[in-house]
């Protein structure tokens, strides 16, 4: 009976949503449909990727661009909410959820401050968790300025501020699923997650013809560092696209990433200083007609003190995601996440596996009905394997 009620409510929401006609900040500026840049919002297509790497300027049309002062108000928002069921078993400290809820709110702004000077701003307001409202820690996810085509060359672009580092081959901000990339979220205790946005500098560039790209960043790093420690994390990335396209929606792309960081253990141990940790990753995005496969493999090496162990700690993992875009308004996804967790660490964590299956149906370019089921297991050194069954269906919209 409850299922029937739920289906009826969902049908009503879909019917009401059909009349919406909203466009977010960049689409509003140009009068484009969202699908100009997004295969399926929020995921970028090849054109969108070029638009982003060109500092939020249409590729090849930099001289015709309007600045933020000459454009419509550059503000947009993204909201998603619906029904979420998140049930855990044998998982310490996990709280079951079964409710309708507003599960995410983001305020966005972006545009051009001048020719070849763009900016992006993303703010997630603080929302105190309550019945029907998912807890959201207030944070500025993005706040950076990008100086593009320095020296009139695509080989040098500089992004300054709080940014989503290019070391993550697949954007967390623009992923199709609500379930996390496990390997991007896994870290030493208190440490920074690989995919967290960071504050610092990033230089990047690309060739016009042969698909080469690079990025190099210098960022603050882990929150476990002291405020006077100074930025000490670096990353490097190189990638190559084969065939026509950027590897997002056409062509094939492979990449390698190295991240070199220093962090203090948490809680801080007597006699310890900042300790080294490194990440190396290889990734690929492969396309065949309406199919896309995303592959990521990451290996980690952390100083012993970061895990409070005697020996250096290593772990690895990755994910493989299959995306299928049969029409402009429908996408299906299937992902397998794996984290081969470190052995012999004081934290009771074992290997993590997650299967995620779902799809998004776009009533409008900027309004998706999102369905997702995810099953996660985590081994523990002590006790039985913990499981999580996550199901959500939401309206995800931007305006």
């Amino acid at each position, binding site marked *: 009976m409850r299922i029937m009620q739920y289906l009826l409510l969902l049908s009503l929401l879909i019917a009401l949503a059909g009349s919406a006609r909203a466009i977010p900040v960049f689409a509003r500026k140009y009068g484009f449909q969202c699908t100009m840049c997004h295969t399926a919002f929020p995921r970028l297509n090849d054109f969108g990727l070029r638009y982003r790497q060109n500092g939020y300027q249409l590729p090849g049309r930099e001289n015709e661009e309007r600045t933020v002062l000459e454009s419509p108000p550059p503000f947009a928002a993204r909201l998603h909410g619906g029904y979420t069921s998140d049930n855990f078993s044998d998982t310490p400290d996990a709280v079951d959820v079964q409710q309708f809820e507003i599960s995410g709110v983001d305020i966005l702004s972006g545009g051009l401050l001048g020719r070849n000077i763009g900016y992006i701003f993303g703010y997630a307001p603080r929302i105190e968790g309550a019945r029907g409202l998912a807890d959201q820690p207030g944070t500025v996810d993005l706040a950076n300025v990008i100086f593009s085509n320095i020296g009139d060359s695509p080989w040098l672009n500089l992004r300054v501020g709080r940014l989503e580092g290019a070391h993550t081959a697949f954007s967390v901000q623009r992923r199709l699923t609500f379930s996390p990339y496990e390997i991007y979220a896994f870290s030493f205790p208190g440490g920074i997650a690989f995919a967290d946005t960071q504050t610092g500098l990033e230089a990047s560039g690309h060739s016009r013809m042969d698909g080469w790209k690079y990025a190099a960043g210098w960022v603050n790093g882990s929150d476990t560092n002291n405020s006077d420690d100074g930025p000490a994390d670096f990353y490097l990335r190189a990638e190559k696209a084969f065939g026509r396209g950027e590897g997002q929606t*056409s062509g094939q792309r492979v990449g390698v990433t190295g991240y070199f960081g220093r962090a203090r253990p948490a809680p801080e141990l007597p006699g310890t200083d900042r300790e080294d940790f490194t990440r190396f990753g290889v990734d690929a995005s492969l396309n065949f007609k309406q199919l896309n496969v995303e592959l990521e493999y990451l290996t980690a090496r952390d100083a012993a003190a970061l895990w409070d162990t005697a020996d250096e700690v290593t772990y690895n993992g990755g994910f493989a995601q299959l995306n299928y875009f049969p029409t402009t308004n429908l996408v299906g996804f299937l992902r397998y996440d794996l984290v081969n967790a470190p052995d012999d660490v004081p934290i009771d964590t074992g290997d993590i596996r997650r299967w995620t299956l779902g799809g998004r*149906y776009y009533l409008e370019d900027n309004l998706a009905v999102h369905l997702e089921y995810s099953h996660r297991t985590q081994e523990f050194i002590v006790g039985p394997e913990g499981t999580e069954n996550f199901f959500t269906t939401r309206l995800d919209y931007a305006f």
Partner: protein
Amino acid sequence: MRFLWILLLLLIGLALLPYDRLPFASANGEYLANGLLPQVPVPFDNPQTDAKILLGRQLYFDGRLSSDGTISCASCHKPDKGWADTEPVSEGVAHKKGGRNSPSIIDEAYSVPQFWDGRAVHLEKQAVGPVQNPIEMDLTAEELEFRLNHIPGYVTEFQAVFGERPTIDLMAKAIASFERTVISNNTPYDQFLQGNRSAMSQAAMRGMHLFNGKGHCTACHSGPTFSDSNYHNLGIGYANGKYADVGRYGVTKDPKDMGAFKTPMLRNVAQTPPYLHDGSEATLMDVINLYDRGGIPNPNLDPAMTPLNLTAREKSDLEAFLVALSGPYPVYTAPPLPNPEITAQELSAMLKGGNR
């Protein structure tokens, strides 16, 4: 497990929903990227008059504006062929052929600049080009003016319209005035923009959405004429490391313009095959397939060109939208010409004989 069932049922249900979305158009015709055509722009120094339009129409159809008397403007911009040519490239005097496709003159009044490489800023500058092109009409300005001044009817008409004897620039003004009457602005798309939601088929509406979205067409084909009046390189004619036609580079000598051509307008595009600057694509679907492949790779390929991954249905929808940009247009026939008994050959002989 029950969640899997719910998920499966909902996915099936959603997949069965009709795909029938309208782009951002409102009932009053305001469309953010591609709107209704405004009033025909008329330069202040060449106002439209009935007499001038008639004179321009006569000149447009008059073969005596070519060296051997066989080629008029209408020879390559045929009124009954969408004011274009059905051949990839048109034949000029003595069956000579150029390298570029004859564009339609429908709505050319809105086009700034003119020619595929933009070497003329407006119609008045454009009209003097083909007359003097050796592979098109093959007259010098001097020869042309001689001929017009030795056709008494034209002399009288030029005097009446301009108060002066014929010159090549006045000829161009008259032809430009006539071309400003070749307007098409009542396409199914225009009707749709004005609130008639049934003016376009469902396929065309889906195509409109693609045009402004996944197809990336609006990145260049923007504005009421569906042209940004700019120059882009699609790689057409590029092979073995060479460009068959340097395009805009020939005008600017800027390496960035190598192989770039003006974005053509798309109004009435369905009525003006073949396509592209060299007429190398025979059908609209051929052009769509070219874009779907991301153009032809070359060192100067426009960075907005990326493969589109369109499905067969999406291509068909896009084509339907392009067809909906086509509507009725005026088809003018040749008017009675002044002094038709005076032939091009006689005029040529008169010039050679020193009869000035």
